[in-house]
């Protein structure tokens, strides 16, 4: 399986509460009219400027072992290794929102429109993560076509998180070639366009994705997204419920 997918910006549904939380706004807090205007403006800009693309490529476990090993800098114990060894199938992936959104954020900051720039950046970061989830759902649908009764759950894991060292991007790029959709990697393993996500889509029964987040690096993790991901495993959409509720 090797796919290049153009996603529509409408496929990203924004969770206002979560985006506002990323701006430091607690749940149910009242925000100013200015704040509301800025949020609405940022989501409109997103739909105008986003160019969502994704690339996915199936990979054998034996090959992925080599990709995952990367430059040999992964944490000795990490959940990704435990999860992928129990998987039923794997696919490398990369998704991007395209370069224009990031350029717009820079332009807004340069013009002194700090609040608008910051909100557009938050909206874009949220959307990039959602796009990675869409890629996972895409793989889940592909699997459902092959095996309609599948109860597989597909989750994405990325270099830089969960003990998979960021330098793992090098081998991942060598195997996947996200340059085909305009994503490049610099010496520091940073992707450009900056609002891009890459990693591996791991498919298997929901249970394989569950782990206790008590690894040494969990203490310094600022993402903590594993908690919500694991909680959602039980309520995640079934394969036939295309891009449904989570």
């Amino acid at each position, binding site marked *: 399986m090797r796919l290049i997918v153009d996603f529509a910006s409408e496929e990203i549904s924004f969770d206002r509460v979560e985006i506002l939380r990323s701006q430091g706004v607690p749940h149910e807090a009242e925000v100013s009219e200015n704040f509301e205007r800025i949020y609405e403006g940022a989501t409109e800009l997103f739909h105008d400027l986003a160019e969502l693309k994704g690339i996915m490529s199936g990979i054998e476990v034996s090959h992925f072992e080599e990709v995952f090993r990367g430059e040999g800098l992964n944490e000795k114990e990490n959940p990704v290794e435990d999860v992928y060894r129990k998987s039923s199938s794997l696919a490398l992936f990369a998704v991007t929102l395209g370069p224009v959104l990031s350029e717009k954020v820079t332009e807004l*900051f340069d013009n*002194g429109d700090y*609040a608008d720039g*910051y909100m557009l*950046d938050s909206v874009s970061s949220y959307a990039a993560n959602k796009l990675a989830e869409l890629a996972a759902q895409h793989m889940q649908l592909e699997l459902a076509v092959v095996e309609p009764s599948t109860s597989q759950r597909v989750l994405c894991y990325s270099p830089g998180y969960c003990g998979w060292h960021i330098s793992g991007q090098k081998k991942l790029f060598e195997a996947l070639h996200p340059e085909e959709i305009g994503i490049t990697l610099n010496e520091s393993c*940073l992707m450009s366009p900056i609002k891009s996500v890459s990693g591996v889509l791991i498919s298997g029964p929901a249970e394989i994705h569950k782990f206790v987040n008590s690894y040494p690096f969990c203490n310094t993790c600022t993402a903590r997204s594993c908690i919500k991901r694991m909680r959602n495993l039980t309520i995640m959409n079934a394969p036939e419920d295309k891009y449904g509720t989570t």
Partner: protein
Amino acid sequence: MELLNQISFNLQNGFDETVVELTKEAVKKQIPPKEILNNGLIAGMNVVGAKFKNHEIFLPDVLLAARAMNGAMEVLKPLLIKDGIPIKGKIVIGSVKDDLHDIGKNLVAILLKGAGFEVIDLGNDVPAEKFIRVAIEENAHVIGMSALLTTTMPVMKKVVDMAKDEGLSGKVRIIVGGAPVSKEYALEIGADAYSYDGANAVETVEGFFAEGS
């Protein structure tokens, strides 16, 4: 004074164009620039800072106020220089070499400007040599560095080491921040301070000047 209260009020609400107009009006009425700055603009930013700390307003509101502050400072800055009023402090800031993340660094720069500091923003992907060269050329008091990747953090140590070699220790304070950076890392590389967010960075830099930069 009513006009200065109006400047403060409008700044708190992020009405940048009104703040600039009122500042021009205050200059025209020959209110001393330092008084406009302290009793209008900084007074307003102090209220904004307090409300932000109490979660009564949020970062976008602070950024709107900062935009108003910066607009008014464009009007006042030449007059403050003419009057020989010293700047609060000069900070050279940037995201380190090979790091293209700049949102956090931008926020810190904006909040520092809003607090009355002069900020020289070098942007992102800044080589260690450039931090040092600009700090020397500009007689900066503080170097601020941001890194969002573990692979780019070592540049911070390079800057700290180069600052020592150039005899800047004690003269130029170094503050570091960014998602993978920690207080322990700052200590380990010999930086003067670590900040976890923009508001904390302002407090930390204010602290440098309180203890005598």
